[in-house]
């Protein structure tokens, strides 16, 4: 069985909705992000699949494949990794190495198979469904030194999750703290 990993940038108040552009609130985060980028590259290299909701894929395919000489490695990773988009309506994902999954049963089947970690990021609605269906195996949370005040959260009110075990925590020079948690099954 594969591990389904939820990777999110998250504020101290638990918000993962980035439409408020809170990444830029702390000037320190942007100024010194080399360490954090290196960890993201390592995590991408170790992953086996990228899973996302329809909107996140539409947003990402309109941006990343068009970045020239991307030094972060994100473009190269996203272009080559096996991508799975969860959508009841999409027919052509319009991105190489992409497969449409119709529903959570398809996601569960993918997770039951063999291969590397299935990483989902952004995709707030999908992540909420994955949590509710108990399909998440691990959380990798990048806590930003920021309180944004409002926005959609990783864990909305009344959401519960099985007991968690902290795997690792590290603080980057830019003030972001990465803490990873595994569902204790």
């Amino acid at each position, binding site marked *: 069985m594969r591990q389904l990993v939820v990777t999110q940038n998250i504020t101290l108040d638990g918000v993962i909705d980035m439409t408020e552009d809170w990444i830029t609130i702390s000037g320190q985060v942007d100024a010194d992000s080399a360490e954090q980028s290196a960890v993201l590259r390592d995590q991408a290299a170790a992953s086996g699949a990228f899973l996302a909701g329809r909107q996140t894929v539409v947003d990402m395919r309109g941006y990343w494949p068009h970045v020239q000489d991307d030094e972060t490695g994100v473009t190269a990773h996203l272009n080559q990794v096996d991508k799975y988009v969860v959508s009841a309506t999409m027919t052509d994902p319009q991105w190489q190495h992409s497969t449409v999954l119709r529903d959570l049963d398809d996601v569960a089947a993918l997770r039951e198979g063999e291969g590397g970690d299935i990483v989902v990021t952004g995709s707030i609605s999908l992540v909420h469904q994955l949590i509710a269906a108990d399909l998440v195996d691990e959380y990798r949370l990048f806590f930003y030194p920021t309180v944004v005040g409002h926005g959609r*959260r990783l864990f909305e009110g009344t959401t519960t999750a099985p007991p968690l075990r902290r795997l690792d925590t590290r603080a980057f020079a830019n003030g972001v703290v990465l803490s990873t948690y595994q569902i204790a099954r």
Partner: protein
Amino acid sequence: MTPAAGPGVVRSGLFMSLDGVISADDDWQFAYFDGELFASVAAAWDRASAVVMGRRSFEGYRALRADHPDSPMLAFLDRVDRYVASTTLTDPQWPGTTVIADDLIAAVSHVRDSTRGETLVAGSPSIVRQLLSAGALDDLNITILPIVVGTGDRLFPDHADDGLDRLSLALADHRVLKSGAVQLTYRRADE
């Protein structure tokens, strides 16, 4: 950056779930109170000479004093100067306790400047929020516990409209405990 320490420092000490909840009806926090976590709490008490709290927290401790007078928390509370923020409490019924009836920010700043050690805000999230918003909290210390509890009061509610939005913080310290708790200390970065 290391956390501010010593006299002249106002510090919070809050326990928060991964979903941002700081208080709930059941006692989900206690499962993580092992020797290591208790030692870190005791170290914060040792540095403090004054404690500030809200009325509800104070009444909880006063009940503890009546029911469990040998609690280690009381050894700490009895040693320090106690300040209770309340507009309704007149007689705290605990010698050495001062009621802060108005202007919390000015009162806490006065405590900070006149006490010999640190000023600790015990629990009391609404006081932490007010001090943080006013720039009167030096160290925002939060212990994040590896649990999702679902319901309960959050430290940072949505649209709270009290100045705590788009707040830029700087990470001053972090510490990892065996129980899975992560202790984070932040300072405001926008001042």
